[in-house]
Structure formats: structure tokens, C-alpha cells
């Protein structure tokens, strides 16, 4: 195998969580993979797609297919954006000249934890994070990509990390993209329930596969003056063992 991975960095990670992108690269390099980033990439198109603007989403999606067309393996620190490419591109790009390529790309793009466990076949990435951590199952990672054990398996191998399960770990945090602003009260109510469960778990940190969920959860936790912090799973896995 080539052992060369191409990064697919979601637009909001690029803009709001650059550390998560760097940490993703660091983890991949530490387990011996060469990492490349193609700066022509922008967004996968999900915001428009989820809002019903498929005509606007399609050219943006086509662009990403073209940018990543020659990549052998693509790794993305987001269950949601991975889902967009793998599960929704075939539908969104039906009739597009790049449809076949899009379908094929979906088979080569992987969420980070999925990639590590299933493709690189590594469960111990040599990280250390001496904290009590709970994992929130973000919806796309869990119910579209069917990733339940993979991220937990990785976390259990992190030195010093105590993994605790929260109640209702599989229940949506209420982010949902534009849902969080269009129906802010409903989203906040869901986020509040999530924050309650996170706090009740006694964890110091809540982690997840998606920075969008974590942004929402962090905003809710801080409004509650909670001491629990959010951290993306890539950033835990990137912590060097001392």
C-alpha cells in the first residue's frame, strides 16, 4: 500500500479549528503515513445541500471531487463531511459528469478514527492524555458511517485516559447545521440535555468526531459555566506520550 494519505479538511475546521487539521496530520505521520494537503479544496457542499439548495451545492461538490480525484486515500477529521461525500454525493451528483468519480471517491474517503482502525489497522497511536474523557457519538459518524467502537477503541489505548460513558451518548446534541440558528430554541434545548448528560458523566473532557457538534456543545457548556471542556478526537490522539 502507498501509505500516503491526502487530507480533506472541512471548511470550518480550516477556518475555526486549524489545530484539528494539524493534529490529524500529526497522528497520521506518527503512525508512519506520508500526508499531503491540497489547498485547492474549499467545502464539501453540505451547508447548501442540507438547506435544500442542491443546485448551489452541486458545483461545490464537483469541485472537491476534481481536487481529490487522484488521491489514493483521503482522511477527514469529520464524520459529517465524510458522510457527505460517501453517502450524499451519489445522490447530489446524479447526472453530473463526475458522478462515477464521486461514487468511487466515496469508497476512498474515511473519517479519521475509521481510517486508523479499519485501513491503517492501528488502535494504539502512541498518545498520552491523562484525563477522564467521554465520547459523544456524532450522528453522521454513528448512524451514517456506523462508527461506534472505532473511536472508543482508539481512546482506550491512549495512555492515562479514562474513558467514561455518558447517558444518552447516541442522542443528537442539537447542532444540525442551520437548524441551530433557524430553530435556535429547539437546538438549545437539545444542547442543554446533552450538556447535562456530559456533566453527569464526571468527565473533564468531551470528545467527538466532529468539530461542529463540539462547537455547539462547547457553546452550551460554557453558557452553563461548566468546567467540562471540549476537544476533538484528533487532538487527543495527537498528544505525545511523555
Amino acid at each position, binding site marked *: 500500500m502507498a501509505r500516503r494519505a491526502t487530507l480533506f*479538511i472541512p*471548511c470550518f475546521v*480550516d*477556518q*475555526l*479549528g*486549524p*489545530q*484539528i*487539521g*494539524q493534529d490529524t496530520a500529526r497522528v497520521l505521520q506518527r503512525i508512519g503515513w506520508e500526508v*499531503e*494537503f*491540497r*489547498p*485547492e479544496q*474549499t*467545502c464539501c*457542499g453540505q*451547508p*447548501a*445541500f*442540507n*438547506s*435544500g*439548495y*442542491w*443546485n*448551489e451545492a452541486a458545483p*461545490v461538490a464537483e*469541485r472537491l471531487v476534481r481536487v481529490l480525484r487522484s488521491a489514493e486515500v483521503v482522511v477527514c477529521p469529520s464524520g459529517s463531511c465524510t458522510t457527505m461525500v460517501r453517502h450524499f454525493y451519489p445522490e447530489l451528483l446524479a447526472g453530473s459528469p463526475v458522478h462515477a468519480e464521486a461514487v468511487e471517491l466515496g469508497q476512498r474517503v474515511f473519517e479519521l478514527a475509521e481510517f486508523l482502525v479499519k485501513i491503517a489497522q492501528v488502535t494504539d497511536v502512541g498518545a498520552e492524555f491523562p484525563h477522564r474523557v467521554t465520547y459523544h457519538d456524532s*450522528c*453522521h459518524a454513528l*448512524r*451514517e458511517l456506523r462508527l461506534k467502537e472505532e473511536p472508543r477503541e482508539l481512546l482506550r489505548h491512549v495512555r492515562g485516559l479514562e474513558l467514561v460513558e455518558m447517558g444518552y451518548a*447516541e*442522542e*443528537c446534541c*442539537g*447542532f*444540525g*447545521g442551520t*437548524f*441551530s*440558528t*433557524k*430553530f*435556535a*430554541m*429547539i*437546538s438549545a*434545548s*437539545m444542547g442543554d*440535555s446533552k450538556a447535562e448528560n456530559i456533566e453527569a458523566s464526571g468527565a473533564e473532557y468531551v470528545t467527538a468526531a466532529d468539530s461542529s457538534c463540539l*462547537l455547539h456543545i*462547547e*457553546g*452550551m457548556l*460554557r*453558557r452553563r459555566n461548566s468546567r467540562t471542556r471540549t476537544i476533538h478526537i484528533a487532538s487527543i490522539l495527537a498528544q505525545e506520550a511523555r
Partner: protein
Amino acid sequence: MNSAPAQEFLRRAAERAADLTHRQMLRAGMDHYQANFAKGRGRFADWEAARQRCHEIKWEGVNHLDKYLLEFEARVKERGGRVFWAENSEEARNYVVNLAASRGVRRVVKSKSMVTEEIHLSPALEKAGMEVFETDLGEFIVQLRNEPPYHIVMPAMHLTHAQIAKLFHEKLSDVAGDDPVSLVAAARQALRRAFFSAEMGISGANFLVADSGLVAITTNEGNGRLCVSLPRIQVAVTGIEKVIPRLRDLAVLWPTLATAGTGQAITTYNTLVGGPRRPGEPDGPEEFHVILLDNGRSELLADAEQRDVLYCIRCGACLNTCPVFRAIGGHSYGTTYPGPIGSVLAPHLRGPEFAHLSYASSLCGACTDICPVKVDLHHHLLHNRRNAVNAGRGRFGERLGFKLWRWAMAGARRFELVGGVVRATLRALYALGLEGTALDPARAWTRNHAAPAIPRASFRKLWREKNGAR
């Protein structure tokens, strides 16, 4: 999103979402359901196989409606029953009201039926001077309160024991005490009087069995069975999508419906109704009518993408698992069918001004995962959104916003430029303490969230600095 129903929805949902007592009540009810459901699912050797089989049965029924409905009709007629095809609510309502009036009906008992809610049958009968009794306990309670059912399967789940006690003392005679046993006894007494004096019994149908012309009714209280055996005129009102090919299909549909609905292995009373009393039979009703309601279902049938919505067996599982339903409850939706299935159905049954419900979802997919007939619920919410936008129903500001977004995402330099400007603006505003104020362009977000720390540099910039161009 600007329609009157949308504004009403936003108002009610916001009120409910902030109501902590309501949240706790729903949470407790749903926890109870989840525990029972998990236990019930565990009784299946292979729950996924059962879902798949039910999906296939409904696929067969719905994709061959033309054949199976006619077969059902022929079997019913052979036994002396009558079948009326109603194109819309009004036709169905008029048929039942006229039938009742022409037979001198004064009292009607009803078993639980969401279709009769959909066509607003009870108010029409009452307007025509008849007394209508809901005989499902939950429905009986919400009828006394003069409000619609809160949930497809548990119509009065939003009420506390104390509220029900107070209601019964106000509205019923012979209420011995406030304990559940006395309350149920009082309801039972009132309902028995109704059962024995009603001239007409109205039920819905859980399934219409084509090969045998039977109407399958499932209840936990036995009220359905009384409704279809005591009164001299029987009416079943049902949607056309309820038809299944064979009697033996119930062997898997019944337990799967029961488990998805309440976690039971099998619902307490499963009744098959066949028609009026025939010569030589000792008892049975004088007349038997089945009303097959379309009311928009044919159009859904014509929509190949969403046809599977017609597989729904109204078990309520998608409501129970939905985090949005858990936040806002059943009455906020303003539709006959609340929850995910209702949000998917609403634009089809009620029109485009109900498209907002398709947006009132985080698309988490819990509904699709639990659905016992595997309706692709959350993806249909996406389809409804697309349909609404393609029909030109997107807001002007949003349409423009996504045009700009598309432009910004069409090139890496534009993306970097726009992103940089937005970040610099937010950083400057938040440094001045203007987070969440009228000047904050991200106010829609910061109203409910503490603002995140906005990084100085993007990932691509950091990568370039470290690794060069690539």
C-alpha cells in the same frame, strides 16, 4: 418559512423547548419506552430481519396497490360489506355522516384512529347532532379536554395523574377516588354505557388484508373489539396504503408493530373484522362499511423517491426516539401526525406551507434507525427541503446567501479571502466585547452559545508556512 403555520410552530416549539417540567415528563415517558423497546427487540431472534421482512411486505402492498386494493374490495363485497373510495377528507366525512344520519344513529363509539383525526370526523358527526365517544382511554381523556392527541400511540402521555383525576371529577359521574384504579373504573363505566347504546362503531385499520378481505385492528384495551362487535353498523375508515397482500403476513407484522410501538411481544387484542352478519350466523352487525381514503396518498405514490413513506404502520417509534419531539412535544407540530413521520408527510398531506417542519430537524437519523418498516425518514426531510427550494419557496435572503456562498467556495483564493475577512471581523468585535450584540454578524449563533475563540490563522495558512505549497 414565513407561512402562518410556520410562525405558529416556532412560537409553540420555543415555549415548549424552554419548559423544563415538560422536558422531564417527556424524558421519563421516553425512557420507559426505550427500556421496553430494548427488551422487546431482544425477544426477536433477528430484529433486523423482521424489519426487512416488514419492509418487503409493505413494499409489495404499496407498489401493487392497484391489485391488492381491488382484491380486498372484492373479498369484502363477497361477504356483504360495502367499500367506499374517498378521494379526500370531505368525501370520507360526508359518507360517514350521511350514513349515520340515514340510519338514525344518535350515538357513535370510536376506537383509536389517526385517519379519523386526519379527516376531522368527530366534529362533523357532532355537528350533525350525534354523540361521539372515543373509547381508547387516552383518546377518551383528550376528548374530555377537547384537544387533539399528543402522540400517535399515547394520546394523553403529556398529562399527569393529578390532571386526569381533576378532569374526571369535573366531567364524569361516579368517580370513587383519585387512585388510578378508581379513575379507570369511572372511565370504563362511562364507556360501557356508550358501547351498549351506540348504533354505530367506527374504527381505523392497522392493516387491510387483501387475500381474505379482513380489516386488522390492534388495541391494548379491547375497546376496538367492542366497537366492531356491539353496534349494529360498523365503519372502518382507513388510508389506502394499509393494504397487505396475505393473511400470513400478519405473523411478522403484528409482533413487529407491537414491539416498535410499545415494546410488547404482541399487542393484547388483535382483531380481524370480516363483514356483516350473514344468514345463519347468531350475531354480528347489520352493516359493514370500509372507507378507503386517498387524501394525497396517490400523489405520494407517484413520487418514486418518497413512496416508502406509505409503508408507515403508525407505530410511533420515530416520535419516541426523536430528540426534537423530546424537546417540543406533540402539540407543537400543529399537524395530525407529529414527529418525524408527520414532518415528512406534512407538505404532501397539508401543502407547501408545512415545509418548515422538514427544516425543524437536526437530521440525526435516529428515526430511520428505529423505523420497523425502514422508511428513509431523515433523508426524506432533505428531499422535502430540496423540493421546497426548487419550488421557489426559499427566503430571498437565504437564496442570495447561498449564491454568494457558492461563489466564495468556487475558488480557494476567494474562500481564503472571505474566511479571513470574517474571522478578522469577529475577532475585532469580540475583543471589544460586542459578542451577541446587534453588531455581531454571528448573533444567530451567539444568542444561545458562548462564542468560540476565533483563530488568527486558517489551517491552510499554517500548512503553507510549515510545508510550502503542498
